[in-house]
């Protein structure tokens, strides 16, 4: 009979345990989220991240070792993005009748996201390099990293700010939109996808199919729009 530490060190060096723990942590997060009636404050992604962060910290495991196992889940982000075509296609007829509101919501949401973030951070004295990483925070991670690099910001910091924005968006969307008495699922979804990319879209899909479809549209189109808007607004800061 070998002792626990030896078995742990054997398992912790392979990918299996980290893949398993990633799924289990998410299931715990999802179960808690359900238990709280899908209250936006009990965000399943945030719960899973905190749990896994604790495990890595307690077991002194470096992130690259964890990612060996978690990469199989991470890889599915690409296929999942492609699969977002499904709700778009299913809502196609609705969508064609709401081109103008979509354009208005997208342009307003995208502009406000970049201008307000840069305005606040600039006023509070952050340096240009940090502002460059903050500008694309509302877009999906791969696009944000590309934009931040073009502007002279750190790609790692950009990724961190993107994730924080996504989790914030998923948590604040429901209370903010309820307070404004916006009951149109299309408006709710589009605004969340535009401001909080994939994590916001995940939340919208959880709440309502049509909101999810419009969130996917907001996320996809804002990735393109921000690539043009962020450098423009960043340049105005002088």
């Amino acid at each position: 009979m070998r002792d626990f530490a030896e078995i742990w060190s054997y398992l912790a060096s392979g990918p299996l345990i980290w893949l398993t723990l990633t799924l289990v942590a998410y299931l715990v997060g999802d179960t808690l989220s359900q238990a709280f009636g899908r209250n936006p404050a009990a965000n399943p992604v945030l719960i899973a991240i905190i749990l896994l962060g604790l495990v890595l910290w307690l077991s002194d495991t470096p992130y690259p070792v964890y990612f060996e196992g978690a990469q199989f889940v991470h890889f599915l982000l690409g296929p999942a993005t492609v699969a977002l075509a499904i709700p778009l296609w299913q809502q196609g007829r609705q969508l064609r009748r709401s081109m103008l509101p979509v354009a208005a919501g997208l342009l307003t949401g995208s502009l406000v996201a970049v201008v307000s973030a840069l305005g606040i951070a600039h006023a509070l004295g952050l340096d240009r390099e940090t502002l460059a990483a903050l500008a694309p925070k509302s877009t999906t991670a791969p696009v944000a990293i590309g934009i931040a690099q073009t502007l002279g910001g750190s790609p790692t910091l950009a990724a961190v700010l993107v994730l924080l924005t996504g989790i914030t968006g998923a948590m604040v969307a429901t209370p903010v939109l309820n307070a404004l008495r916006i009951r149109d699922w299309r408006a709710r979804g589009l605004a969340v996808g535009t401001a909080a990319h994939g994590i916001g879209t995940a939340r919208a899909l959880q709440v309502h199919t049509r909101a999810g479809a419009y969130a996917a549209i907001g996320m996809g189109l804002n990735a393109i729009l921000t690539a043009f808007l962020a450098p423009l607004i960043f340049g105005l800061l002088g």
Partner: protein
Amino acid sequence: MIQALALILTCQLAGEALAHWTGLPVPGPVLGLGLMLILLSASARIAGLVVPVGTGILRHIALLFVPAGVGVVGHLDRLGPQAAVLAAAIVVSTVLAIAAGALAFRLVARLTGSEDGDA
């Protein structure tokens, strides 16, 4: 299921190739989304194959953000003394962007008479 996965991956692959080839500032999977949209509209057979599998993936799309999120935990100390300012900028800006986007959508929807309902 394998056919559906092959179709999804093929769209992603073609999207990656297209993004690289054209140098567009759009990620490959987003172009792959566009290609999948064309396939779904073009063929009922493809739609019948892809929809059940793709919907299954989308149901748990939140799970897919966990590995990257865990990486962020290790970088939180990088934010240093700027952390409070960055947090304020993110929270305020996200609330404003969601509110402004939804209000603009509703305003134009009312002006153009576009109603939320089942298509």
